[in-house]
């Protein structure tokens, strides 16, 4: 492709300075080959000058049959920057855990250099591979080449968004269940819900292998599945002693920072009152190999997180305190639960009302009843706090 028009961009150039990666540097590199990327620099500089954004979004773009995956973007300065008059975003379903062969990556880049700006975002906060900037007439071509390469579009709009997970089992000793397997299975089970928007609003699912929650499921997903364990933290006293010998002040740096104060250190032996552990991961992260999640591992299912868009931010709260996710039965339970949630939300939810807002509006207790769950004390909304079960001090006769 030809080199694009060159723009003078003193403000953007500032963002190339310093030791950190710079998106300006990357867009300039892409502009060597892509007139679209070149025009993007021009429009962006103008935006910085005027302190005004020049993008419009929404509308009617997509590939035949799908209601998600393509996000319409247009410039309101199309006359001045015709190359970016259309600048649509494509979301592509990433492989679970974000593992690629270099061959697959090259394939993706080749498609995008031919049919788009060449600019990508690996990966978006939805988890998808993001292709930034193409025109309406290129969409079907990109789609058919992507499918030939074994990729499919992800979700956008009022649908199930591309499920996303940490790469737990593949790389991480804390993983309490196989996040990648669950992510893949959910993606395959709900293809129709991903590609054909039929909900009041978006529905995101994220799977983290342990409470460290590297995919921030608790803050970002309508349905968060977070690894946890039932039994006791695994403890290797030899290793703990080694940490102490090497200068870790276990009393000050570990025990006194445990949020529930459920640990005890007598100078030689660490004792954990596991019944009071809220599985915050702090001690485990601080002493790898000395401490580890228990052996009876599984996951907790939570509902309702969202960023502030129509209403304020919300963290998710517990629906299922513990689910195994290894056997067929618990897998079917999870799928049935999702169907029930969607049924109730589609029936009663308002337009652009996230499921967490909906549950809050009708009351979490009523919501649980509608989806067929019994309230239990372990369904906490915050540590040590649950919205369903109330304790009363016994009255004296």
């Amino acid at each position, binding site marked *: 492709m030809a080199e694009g028009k060159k723009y003078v961009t003193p403000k953007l150039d500032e963002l190339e300075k310093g030791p950190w990666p710079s998106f300006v540097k990357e867009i300039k590199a892409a502009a060597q080959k892509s007139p679209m990327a070149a025009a993007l620099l021009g429009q962006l500089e103008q935006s910085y000058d005027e302190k005004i954004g020049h993008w419009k979004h929404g*509308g009617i773009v997509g590939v035949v049959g799908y*209601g998600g995956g393509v*996000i*319409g973007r247009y410039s309101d300065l199309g006359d001045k920057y015709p190359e970016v008059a*259309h600048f649509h975003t494509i979301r592509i379903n990433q492989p679970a855990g974000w593992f690629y062969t270099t061959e697959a990556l090259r394939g993706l880049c080749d498609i995008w250099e031919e049919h788009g700006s060449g600019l990508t975002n690996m990966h978006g906060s939805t988890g998808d591979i993001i292709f930034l900037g193409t025109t309406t007439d290129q969409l079907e071509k990109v789609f058919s080449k992507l499918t030939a390469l074994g990729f499919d579009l992800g979700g956008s709009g*009022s649908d199930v968004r591309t499920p996303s997970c940490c790469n737990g089992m593949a790389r991480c000793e804390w993983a309490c269940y196989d996040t990648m397997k669950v992510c893949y299975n959910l993606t395959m089970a709900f293809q129709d819900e991903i590609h*054909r*928007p*039929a909900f009041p609003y978006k529905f995101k699912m994220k799977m983290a292998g342990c409470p460290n929650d590297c995919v921030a499921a608790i803050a970002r997903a309508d349905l968060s599945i977070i690894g946890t364990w039932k039994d006791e933290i695994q403890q290797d006293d030899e290793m703990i002693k080694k940490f102490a010998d090497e200068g870790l002040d276990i009393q000050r740096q570990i025990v006194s920072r445990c949020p529930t104060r459920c640990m005890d250190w007598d100078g030689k032996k660490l004792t954990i009152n596991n019944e009071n552990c809220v599985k915050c991961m702090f001690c485990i992260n601080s002493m790898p190999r000395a401490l580890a999640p228990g052996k009876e591992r599984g996951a907790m299912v939570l509902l309702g997180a969202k960023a502030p868009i129509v209403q304020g931010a919300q963290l998710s709260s517990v629906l299922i305190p513990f689910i195994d996710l290894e056997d067929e039965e618990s897998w079917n339970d999870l799928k049935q639960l999702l169907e029930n949630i969607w049924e109730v939300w589609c029936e009663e939810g308002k337009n652009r009302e996230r499921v967490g807002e909906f549950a809050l509006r009708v009351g979490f207790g009523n919501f649980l009843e509608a989806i067929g769950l019994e309230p239990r004390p372990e369904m906490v909304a915050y540590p040590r706090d649950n919205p369903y079960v109330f304790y009363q001090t016994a009255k004296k006769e």
Partner: protein
Amino acid sequence: MAEMTVEQLADAMYEMIKEAKGMKKYKATDLQKAMAERFGADKQTCKQAIRLLMDSGRCIYTYFGGSYIEIPPDQPPAP
């Protein structure tokens, strides 16, 4: 009432969208609820009917702060 076929449901949905064109936009759930009310249609058949409308190109998904089902415009959309 005899059960509606997927094709009949798709036609009924199409009529509903056509009548409202320019005045009201429908989401998938609006169509499904209307079909359930009018013909007692079940969710699964409604889904298939919507799929038929999409795959045949009679309808398209649009996005305006939410996903809607509409008849494609005669002209390509002015951005």
